[in-house]
C-alpha cells in the first residue's frame, strides 16, 4: 500500500531507523555474538586478563556432563510437550467457546486471567497449592476417600514434578492459544461447517476436514510462537522447583544460571547459551515446513 505512494528520502529513512537499530545492535546483537565467543573460553567472569581460549573444550565437557544432558532432554521435552498440549487444549477449548454453549464466557474469561500473572508468581502460587500441606493435598486428605494416607509429592517426586511443571505451564499460557484460535475461528464461514454437518460428518470429521485445514496457517504461526516461547522457560522452573528434586526438572536456562552466577563458570555456561540459541533458531525455521509455504 505505502509502496505505491511517496517514500521518504534515504537520509530521513536512515535517521528514523538508526536509533532503534543501534540500540538493538548494542544490547541484543553484541551480547549474542559475545556469548558465542565466550562459549569457546574458560573464564570466571572477573578479570578480563584471565580469559583463556579453550576451543571446543567446553563442548567436550558438556558432552560428558550428566546434568547437562538431563537439562537438554528436559528442555526439549518441555518445549515439545507444552507445544502439543497447548495446541490441543487451546484449539479444543477455542472450539468449545466458539460453539457458544452456556458457560462459554466464563471459560473465556477464566483462561484470560493467567495471562496477567507473572510466571514467577504463578510458580509461587502453585508451589503453595501443591505442597505437602497445600490446598490440594489437604483437600484430598479431608475428602473422606481414605485412599490417600500420604500427601502426594506433586513437586517432591522426581517423575511427578516434571509433569506438574508441564501442567503449570499449560495453566499459564493456554489462554494465548485459545485467544489466537478463537480469533481465527471468527472468520471460518459457518456454511462450511453446516454443509459438512448436513453431509453427515461427525464432529471429529468436521474438525479434521473443515476446521483444521481452514486454520492451517494460524496453527503454523501458533506452533512456532509456542516453540519460541518454550525455549525461554526460566522462572517457572526456577521458582516452582529450582530444577529439583534431584535435577528432575532442570532445564538449560536454570543450569546456565547456576553455572554462571553461582559457580562462576562463565565460559562453560556460555556454551549452554549457544545450544539454546541453536535450538530456538532451528524451531523458528520450522515454520515454512508446517505451513507448507516459503516465507
Amino acid at each position: 500500500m505505502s509502496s505505491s505512494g511517496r517514500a521518504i528520502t534515504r537520509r530521513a529513512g536512515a535517521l528514523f531507523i538508526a536509533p532503534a537499530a543501534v540500540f538493538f545492535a548494542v544490547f541484543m546483537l553484541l551480547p549474542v555474538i559475545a556469548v558465542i565467543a565466550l562459549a569457546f573460553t574458560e573464564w570466571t567472569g572477573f578479570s578480563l586478563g584471565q580469559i583463556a581460549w579453550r576451543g571446543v573444550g567446553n563442548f567436550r565437557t558438556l558432552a560428558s556432563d550428566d546434568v547437562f544432558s538431563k537439562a537438554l532432554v528436559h528442555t526439549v521435552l518441555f518445549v515439545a510437550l507444552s507445544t502439543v498440549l497447548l495446541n490441543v487444549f487451546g484449539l479444543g477449548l477455542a472450539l468449545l467457546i466458539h460453539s457458544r454453549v452456556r458457560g462459554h464466557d466464563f471459560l473465556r474469561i477464566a483462561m484470560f486471567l493467567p495471562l496477567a500473572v507473572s510466571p514467577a508468581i504463578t510458580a509461587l502460587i502453585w508451589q503453595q497449592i501443591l505442597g505437602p500441606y497445600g490446598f490440594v493435598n489437604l483437600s484430598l486428605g479431608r475428602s473422606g476417600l481414605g485412599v490417600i494416607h500420604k500427601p502426594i509429592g506433586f513437586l517432591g517426586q522426581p517423575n511427578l514434578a516434571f509433569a506438574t511443571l508441564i501442567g503449570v505451564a499449560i495453566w499459564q499460557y493456554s489462554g494465548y492459544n485459545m485467544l489466537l484460535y478463537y480469533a481465527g475461528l471468527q472468520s471460518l464461514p459457518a456454511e462450511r461447517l453446516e454443509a459438512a454437518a448436513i453431509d453427515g460428518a461427525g464432529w471429529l470429521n468436521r474438525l479434521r476436514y473443515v476446521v483444521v485445514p481452514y486454520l492451517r496457517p494460524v496453527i503454523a504461526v501458533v506452533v512456532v510462537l509456542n516453540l519460541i516461547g518454550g525455549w525461554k522457560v526460566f522462572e517457572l522452573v526456577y521458582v516452582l522447583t529450582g530444577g529439583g528434586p534431584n535435577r528432575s526438572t532442570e532445564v538449560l536456562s536454570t543450569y546456565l544460571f547456576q553455572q554462571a552466577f553461582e559457580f562462576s563458570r562463565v565460559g562453560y555456561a556460555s556454551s549452554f547459551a549457544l545450544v539454546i540459541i541453536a535450538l530456538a533458531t532451528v524451531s523458528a525455521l520450522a515454520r515454512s515446513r508446517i505451513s507448507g509455504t516459503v516465507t
Partner: protein
Amino acid sequence: MTDFAPELPQRTLAERVFDSLRERSSPGRFAGSLVCFFVGLVYVIPLLWVVTEGVKASSDIFSTSPFPHSFRISNFADAWRQFQLGTLFAHTIVITIATVVLSIAFSVTAAYGFSRYRSKLSEGVFVLILTGLMVPPAAIIIPFFLTMRHLGLYNNLFAVILGETAFALPLGILLLRGYIDNIPTELTDAAVVDGASEWKAFRYVVFPLLRPAVATVALFTIISTWNGFLLPLVLLRDTATSTLTVGISQTAGQVGQLSLQFVAAAAVMAVVPVLVILIAARRYYVQGLSAGALKH
C-alpha cells in the same frame, strides 16, 4: 408477520423456539457446558485461593474451606512491611514506565522508517531485528551482566531498563510497522508539499493516528516488564534493590510455610495492577495478539 405467508415452507416461531430449546438442552451441549464450568474452575481456583489465603489468620491457613473463617485485611499491611513492598513497587513502576517510554520512542520511529523507506539494506535490518523475538533472555544474560558490571550499572535500575527495552523493541517494531503500512502516504505528502519537514510530518500527522497501535504495544510492554524476572534477578543484587517478582519469590522462600498468608497477600498486591490494566485494555490485547501473529 409470518401469518400473512402461511403457504411458505417456513418454520413457525413456535417451531423455532422448540428447536432452539432442544438444541440448548441437547446432551452434547450440556456436556460442553460442564466442561466450560469445570475447566474454567481450574483456571480460577488458584487465583481465588491466593485471595482467600491472603486474608486468613495464621491459625487458619491450613483450612481448605473456600470461605475463610477469619478475615484479616491487616495481613496486607503486614505483608507490605515484611516484603518491603513499598521499595519493590517503586522499582517495578520506575522500570516499567521507563521501558515503555524508551521502547515506544525507539520502535515507533524505526517502524515509520521501515514502512516508508524501503531498500535491501533496510529490509535486512528489519528482518534482523525480528530475529530478536526468538532470543531467550537466558541465552544473552551472561554478556549482558558482564557489560553492565563493566559500565558500573550493576545493581542499577537503568541496567534492567536497557535490557527490557532491547527485548521489547522487536515486537513493538513489528506491530507498529504493520499498522503504519495501512496509513496512506498521501496524508504526509500533503504536509511535506506545504513545507513541513519529514520529522514534522511524522510527528504531527502520522503519530497522532498511531494511538491505538501505541496503546497495544504499551500494554504488551507493561505486562512483560512488570512480570519480568531474569533481568532483575541477575542485574540487581538483593531484595532491597529488586522488583516485585524477584523480591516476593525470594522472600517467600525464606519466611516459610507459617507465613503463607503474607506470601499470598504480597502475591495478590503484585498481580492486581497488571490484572486491572489487562482487563481494562483487553480489546487492545486481543487485537495485538492477532495482528502480531498474522503479520509474523
